[in-house]
């Protein structure tokens, strides 16, 4: 996915809302496109198209693409027993397969699952779009050394552990609830990304945690920590780790990405 175009899509979607155009219900930026939900009995498509074209010209004319970007830190129990059981169930019921983390590590050309998840927790992940299932994020690694291209399940799983962290294509996703799925599972987070529980601060304004333009940093936890956090969530007491108010600049990002690629020295990768 072209990050520059994704930033433009996020900017465009947000500027359209800022204009408070009568009849516009919501905008959905998804990777390199924007879907506009509007009421055609309030605004005619031609009139809306003209307004949007004007906003798009303004957005495109800006030299740098800068968007507000929150940093959300997510605990991840990598190589956990729950998603392993989910994969074993698929292997028994649908089609015999090996374990997902080994498959993923091999597809990524890394020596083993531990190396893959260390690298996965090293980079920040960019939320390029949200949806499909309520609150589900599509995330790409921001560190160019951490990119991957992982085949998807065929046929897909019929069920997936809630909170499962999966990788497919160049992306990472989190399953907000028990749903079918096609990404390979490498871990599980105890933190909900969709919830109607408004005791949890992150869900008071919206029922979903992520928005496009967020950055996500996973950090490894063990099963005991998973259980503790899960209990705190159930009690409505979990404190989300969200840093607000940061800006993400495309030009600054590009300079940084180029510099880390130059810095790469033999065998001294940081994960």
């Amino acid at each position: 996915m072209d990050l520059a175009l994704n930033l433009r899509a996020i900017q465009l979607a947000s500027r359209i809302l800022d204009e408070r155009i009568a009849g516009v219900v919501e905008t959905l930026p998804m990777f390199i496109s924007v879907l506009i939900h509007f009421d055609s009995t309030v605004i005619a498509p031609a009139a809306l198209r003209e307004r949007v074209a004007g906003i798009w010209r303004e957005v495109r004319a800006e030299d740098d693409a800068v968007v507000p970007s929150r940093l959300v830190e997510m605990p991840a129990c990598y190589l956990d027993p729950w998603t392993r059981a989910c994969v074993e169930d698929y292997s028994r019921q649908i089609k015999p397969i090996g374990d997902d983390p080994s498959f993923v590590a091999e597809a990524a050309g890394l020596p083993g699952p531990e190396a893959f998840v260390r690298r996965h927790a090293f980079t920040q992940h960019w939320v390029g779009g949200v949806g499909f299932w309520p609150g589900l994020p599509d995330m790409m690694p921001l560190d160019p050394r951490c990119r991957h291209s992982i085949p998807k399940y065929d046929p897909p799983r019929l069920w997936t552990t809630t909170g499962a962290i999966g990788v497919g294509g160049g992306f990472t996703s989190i399953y907000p609830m028990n749903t079918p799925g096609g990404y390979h599972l490498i871990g599980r987070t105890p933190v909900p990304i969709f919830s109607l529980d408004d005791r949890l601060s992150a869900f008071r304004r919206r029922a979903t945690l992520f928005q496009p333009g967020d950055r996500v940093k996973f950090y490894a936890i063990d099963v005991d920590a998973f259980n503790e956090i899960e209990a705190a969530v159930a009690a409505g007491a979990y404190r989300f780790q969200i840093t607000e108010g940061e800006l993400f600049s495309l030009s600054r990002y590009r300079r940084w990405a180029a510099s880390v690629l130059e810095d790469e020295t033999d065998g001294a990768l940081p994960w």
Partner: protein
Amino acid sequence: MVTASLLVLQPGLQSTIQDWPGRIGHWCVGIPPSGPMDERAFRLANGLLGNPQGMSALEFQLLGPKLSAGCDIDIAVIGGSAPTLDAVPFQTGKVVTLRAGQVLDCGIVQRGARGYLAVAGGFRKELVLGSAATFPRGGIGGRALAAGEALLLASPTAGGPAAQLPPDATPTLDDPATIEVTAGPHLDWLSAEGIATLVGAVWTVSSQSDRTGIRLSGPSIAFSKRAFDKAPENGPDPTNVINTGYAVGGVNLCGGTPIILPVDGPSQGGFITPVVVPSAAMWKVGQLRPNRTMMFRRVTLEEAIAMRQTLDATIASAIAAAREQREAVR
């Protein structure tokens, strides 16, 4: 004991409480609007009773629920089923008074796919994100009805004015049914021949269809160069595209299968959308029965907007005609 309720004796198939237009404004984070699959029948059922057209009412598919009344209440059933009251058949499309202790069987849907049961004053159901609609697959707003469950009534009244819809207010779909479509964002991914096939062929509704997707089977579709000359990140299949937002009513092509995305469908994904069903034609999609056939018909955006105005006007006049009926009865 809770008396202002309907007790579910048999739940029927995927019976759910919905409201209209459902849970609006959360599509941008993947939460679908839900609401009735057949907006037209749903609004008429409420209108008959003098309820606001969007008030919460019950949707059932193919097999309706069997309910016992905890109190007296006026109801209306709309759809192609043969409902009974204490085993005595009654007409759909009219106000009927249900007495406490009586058993209402919404019956088997013989015509179309879905029926609706509206109750005077609506159901009492907690709003989730501003709506009483049910998204059973995601567990938002509850699940499908279960036997033994009590459906709470908001403010039941009985013995209200008689009202009956004109006979032409609930049309039967032709076989093949005609479903209008406008050009979608990826129409140019099909070749001229492919477009002619998609719009000209007779499609069969798959039994693998539900509120999240109406799957169609039929001929294979030819693509244009656009579907092949694309960056690899779009995916290997001609129907693959970099994930993009979907519209309710969008017709996805997933490999060889067209899927119409209804009110519980996904908000985004990686398949192309060559054509889109206008909102005013989605009520017909909601009545497509598995193994029946349908055809698409191209309309312009202007025609699609006019269809919305016509649908709203048709519903309003059918309800007004039912009100005149009240005057006549009185």
